[in-house]
């Protein structure tokens, strides 16, 4: 047990040196790619913003159902079945058919090859569910149908979010999906997320529609407020062009009117429609509507066939820039709500790093002094082990480019405190063995063997707690779980290889000494 072959000593030394080198790459610059890794600092240490966004899918579902009523009506019309009393209530579609047709309609919805109601063989589920309530037929999204709808709107939303964040130009943003209706945005180094928050808070649904006085407009009308909230106008529901038709949008200075405007370029389809609408609608007011509010409603004076135009609306340069950005990056499929925000300023982050490092240094020194006083030569061995352990721990964190958080630093300090446990268990056992055993080498062997189960048990319990924490915890707390968990492995390595190596050297040199420990 106590014997170490030369090869093993070499291996242990190389391994330790390797990790010490990796750990020190946080301080020095290495040319080599492998060594030039760094521990990532969490947002709580480097400062930055953490935003959790939730997609409000309700409007999407309602829109889809609205479209479905038309689809259903047309589908069955071709089959000479009349759909009566179709209406949407609480995310359900209700309609009536004659009793003769009922079974046919049910079959259409439940057929696995139905082109009206897609079937997902993987989940053994249709997109829609149909139910005969007796009074009428009820159609709604199945569980899988809803999940599909949510993931698709999440896919679209994350793309738009990414574009908007990229346009603002923060460094290395981290944008991730969470569940099927959330998006996590991490913005390192950003201490005032106000602008991004307001950009992400807008759906940016742009439409151009005519202002009308005709209450009986073929497409229906609605009353909308102006951006300033004071005036109102009645606009047609007919959409001339929408944000999808935009190719580009830029803020510009209109030198004639001395105001900031947003100029835009339309795609081919948009340009055609815009040209037609402006030629037939000369003298009418064309409302520019963003997210249900009228930005402005200029009077059409000329036909605009060039496919480009401009929006004015009392913008400052900043608001014009933001509007152009929103129009360029496209509309979100559904509104986003910020349900969690955590922002740490860079100076607090630096303060936390300093405090953490001071606490680590003091904790370390206290433990080292305590062990030296209490254990003398074996205290020294424990201390050497502790130092190497700390470096290996930092090395492993660096190697995996783990994220270090403030609780993570606490985890490292705690590891220092608890790492002595295994060594102490061994040394105490050796002491006991030495009482009955005169051969000190055998006593040391016994100490290592007999303490093994206790050490294993003790570390597994802590590891279990760390694992639970890793999977259940969020953000900074996860960092604690990582350092605590990795700390257990590095501790076991340093105790069983490094400390034992030193112990074996000491014991074999002093085996004839009266009192070894």
């Amino acid at each position, binding site marked *: 047990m106590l014997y170490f072959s030369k090869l093993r000593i070499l291996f242990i030394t190389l391994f330790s040196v390797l990790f010490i080198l990796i750990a020190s790459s946080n301080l020095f610059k290495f040319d080599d790619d492998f060594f030039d890794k760094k521990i990532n600092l969490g947002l709580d240490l480097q400062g930055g913003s953490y935003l959790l966004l939730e997609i409000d899918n309700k409007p999407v579902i309602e829109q889809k159902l609205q479209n479905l009523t038309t689809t259903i009506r047309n589908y069955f019309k071709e089959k000479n079945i009349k759909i009566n009393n179709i209406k949407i209530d609480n995310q359900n579609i209700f309609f009536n058919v004659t009793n003769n047709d009922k079974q046919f309609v049910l079959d259409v919805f439940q057929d696995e090859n139905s082109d009206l109601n897609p079937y997902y063989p993987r989940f053994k589920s249709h997109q829609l569910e149909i139910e005969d309530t007796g009074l009428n037929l009820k159609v709604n999204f199945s569980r899988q149908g809803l999940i599909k709808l949510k993931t698709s709107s999440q896919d679209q939303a994350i793309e738009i979010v990414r574009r908007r964040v990229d346009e603002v130009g923060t460094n290395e943003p981290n944008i991730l999906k969470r569940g099927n209706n959330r998006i996590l945005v991490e913005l390192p180094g950003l201490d005032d997320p106000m602008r991004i928050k307001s950009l992400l808070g807008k759906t940016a649904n742009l439409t151009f529609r005519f202002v009308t006085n005709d209450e009986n407009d073929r497409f229906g009308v609605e009353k909308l407020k102006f951006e300033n909230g004071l005036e109102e106008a009645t606009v047609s529901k007919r959409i001339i062009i929408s944000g999808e038709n935009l190719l580009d949008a830029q803020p510009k200075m209109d030198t004639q009117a001395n105001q900031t405007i947003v100029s835009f370029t339309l795609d081919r389809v948009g340009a055609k429609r815009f040209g037609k609408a402006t030629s037939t609608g000369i003298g009418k007011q064309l409302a520019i509507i963003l997210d249900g509010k009228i930005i402005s409603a200029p009077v059409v004076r000329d036909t605009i066939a060039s496919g480009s135009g401009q929006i004015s609306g009392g913008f400052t340069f900043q608001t014009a820039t933001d509007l152009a950005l929103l129009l360029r990056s496209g509309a979100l499929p559904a509104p986003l709500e*910020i349900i969690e925000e955590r922002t740490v*300023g860079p100076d607090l982050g630096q303060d936390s790093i300093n405090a953490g490092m001071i606490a680590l240094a003091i904790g370390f020194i206290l433990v080292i002094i305590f062990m030296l006083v209490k254990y003398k030569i074996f205290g020294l061995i424990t201390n050497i082990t502790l130092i190497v352990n700390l470096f290996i721990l930092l090395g492993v964190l660096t190697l995996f480019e783990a994220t270090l958080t403030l609780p993570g630093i606490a985890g490292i300090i705690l590891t220092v405190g*608890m790492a002595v446990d295994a060594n102490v268990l061994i040394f105490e056992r050796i002491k006991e063995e030495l009482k009955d055993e005169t051969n000190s080498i055998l006593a040391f062997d016994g100490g290592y063997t007999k303490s093994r189960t206790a050490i294993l*048990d003790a570390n597994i319990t802590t590891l279990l707690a760390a694992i639970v924490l890793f999977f259940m915890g969020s953000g900074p707390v996860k960092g604690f779980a990582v350092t605590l968990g990795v700390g257990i492995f590095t501790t076991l390595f340093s105790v069983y290889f490094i400390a034992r190596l030193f112990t074996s050297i000491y014991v074999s040199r002093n085996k004839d000494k009266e009192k070894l420990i």
Partner: protein
Amino acid sequence: MIAFNKYYNHFNLLSSFLIIVSLLLLIFKGLNFGIDFKGGTLIELRASDSKINVSSLRDRFNQMDLGDVSVKKFGNDTDFLVKFENKDNKKNIIEEIKVNLDKSFGNNYDFRRVENVGPKVSDELLKSGVIAISLSLALMLIYIWIRFEWQFSLGAIFALFHDVIVTLGVFSLFSLEINLSIIAAVLTIVGYSMNDTVVIFDRVRENLRKYSDIKIFELTNISINETLSRTIITSATTLLALLAIYFFGGEILKGFSLAMILGVVFGTYSSIYIANTVLVRLRVSQKTVLRENEKK
């Protein structure tokens, strides 16, 4: 040898008392949940003007119609922690507050940290916190059940529950804030307490196999004494590390390290005075461990 076993009954009584008081506190006084679990907004603010103090800040914030606002000093004289419920979950609340504060204090302050947790998220965080603690307790139970005889498992679990309940009881008594890092601390306490108990139990079991003529009452005492030196050193170094975090690690880690300190103290105590007394009360003997061996 210290006669720990002389006081088994006394300390069992004390622990029962502590657990009952803690449970009563938890039921009737409850815990002081932070915004992580209650939802709301938190602002850490640093002032560079002596005009800004707790009362002037409180005046300002109270005029803003934010509901219940708490303003406290945070660490030193220039740092303050402001918390409020933000019931309507207003979107631009931070900007509104900044505009408002600018009017009275100009540019002489700085938001160092802003946290805003919506009601949905806080409910989820609370749920996952409870699940995490329950899950870790369950895992410990399973682990110890595999490794030891059921009497030992019962003892360890009793000790675990004692540590968690009494630590939370202290937090309730002093209205200390429960946030995400406290959950991390409680989980670590669970691990530590188990660790400490297992080391003594390991020795008890070894001694049970070795000596057939020593009663469990004596045997636990012998085992506690044999492992005492290790118990003292490990808890001492762990406490030293934790004290360093408590005093030098900054305000944010104060609650976390305090919970851990309490947990280590209770954990060490419970390994001796709860885990072992359960073995005594269940009349564990050599037969218990030998029978188990035959089965295996």
